[in-house]
């Protein structure tokens, strides 16, 4: 993936996080891709919305029971890495 593609992907994921959180997260906080999303207010309902959004946008089905370590959902960087590795057909 080129630098431009990676940057665009991070912006798409950041936007998904913002929408999933219902706008409760300050978009400025999402500009740093290593920010821990839990610490800036992404709650369980927000994560539920985010998982739906990732599946519908990138075709990535995430079964949390199959993943021992959930840190791949803690930052935008980590989410991008996970989506890139598991991506199916884009919606």
């Amino acid at each position, binding site marked *: 993936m080129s630098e431009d593609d990676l940057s665009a992907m991070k912006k798409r994921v950041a936007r998904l996080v913002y*929408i999933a*959180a*219902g*706008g*409760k997260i300050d978009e400025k906080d999402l500009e740093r891709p290593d920010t821990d999303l839990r610490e800036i*207010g992404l*709650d*369980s*309902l927000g*994560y*539920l*919305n985010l*998982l*739906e959004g990732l*599946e*519908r946008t990138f075709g990535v*089905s995430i*079964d*949390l*029971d199959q993943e021992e370590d959930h840190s791949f959902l803690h930052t935008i960087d980590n989410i991008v890495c996970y989506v890139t590795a598991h991506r199916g057909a884009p*919606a």
Partner: protein
Amino acid sequence: MSSILARGAIRDAMVDCLGRHDGRKAVVGAESLGYGELAGRVDDAADWLCAVLPGDEAGRRSRKHLGFCLGNRVEYVILYFAALYAGDLPLLLDANFNTGEIEAIRSDCGLDALLIEPSKAAKIEVPGKGDPIPFADEVVLLPLSQVAPPRFEPRVSTEVCRFTSGTTGRPKCLEFSGHAVVSAAKNWILGTGMRGEDRTLCLAALSNGLAFNTSLLSSFLAGGELHFLKGAPLTRPVARWIEELGITRLVAFPTLYRNFVAPGGPDRAAMASLEHAISAGAPLWPDVREEFRVRYGLDISDYYGIAETGPCTFERDARHHSGLGVPLPGAEIRIAPGPGDPGTGEILVRTASMASGYLNHPGLFEGRLDADGFYHSGDRGRLVDGRLHLVGRTEDHINVAGRKIDPTEVVAVVSALPGVADAVAFPDEDLNREVLVHLAVVAGSADLTRAAVAEACRSRLAPYKVPGRISFVPEIPRTGIGKPRIAVLREQLNASRKESPS
């Protein structure tokens, strides 16, 4: 067969239905158990509870208070009934309760042990915490030695306790008699037409009144199947479960239904077996209800229930698309005359499934009953042709995804923070139209930061109580007697947002 001989209305009802429906499937989750297998597992678990929490040297075993701090799973069902079989008292905690809330419950009500996931048990930091005792792969019993006698003793008739939000971080403990719990289940079966052929997929937490009353006992009394989804309640796995297992009843919350009708949601064919889609906990958005009907050909049934009274209404008639249905058997509703539109007023409820009282707030529940035993709900509504329509609340609670939060609890946490001159919490909505707690703070010191306020809330409050929005304001408008003027504050905040749209 267990040697336990404890009696109680719930236990008696369960013993009866486990025997009557032997040979049928009872509960399905990570594993699947028939009624006979469930009976055996409950007996074994009751023996296990008595072994790990024994009596004194003379063999006298007092009633143990067991805090259920678990998400939905088959083991929850086994241990809940096992506790009743063993003569113990299950206290159904919200699985999101933090250390402070658990400690408050132990201090008020007494907790001899928690049934909890191992990872969460490791994070609980309370005095007298023992070593976890494994029950299943993902469930342990965490013994808690009592550091002081509890402040309150439950009534002898109490068989189950559930919780609602209280002030200053102390959840209010509702006591229910076995008769009330069994009545709620039987009346739900009667009022909603539940049958032995029903397969109920329950996505709401069993500690919540919705799930507790619509699923936990009623499914078994009817001879039906109770299903728990493994994993997060995302629309595709839910639809897959419904399709593959022929689910007839879905018990869920508004957010899930909204996700179903969003672009890319599951196909209609996947939902073909569904006969009832039940929503509760928070008001369902009318456009979501309409879109669900268009897409899946099924009405979402709203149900009105109150933590203190149990289920109150249900709509069975598919021709009615507004309101919350008619009173269930055993439930009576009156509208107290009040100011405003004639016929609209506070909803008063009397049911056969009422709580006995608040264990840790003696007299509070009784004070909300009128001379005829009707409970003052705090909700405003009207009856139209016998159907209940909700129009608002007379009280200040904030309902976040079905969990009622007393705003004074949030304010108490923030007010203890150095540099906070004044604060008020009130309901607001996020961009997804989900209700959130909005906290307005007046800083008495330039050192006070949003991050410090957020951290104080996160460290002291359950996640759902943490404000989703924090605003710093120069002053909180108040009435002459000091009551915050929320409408005025909202106008001020909206005006300042328009001035600085970033």
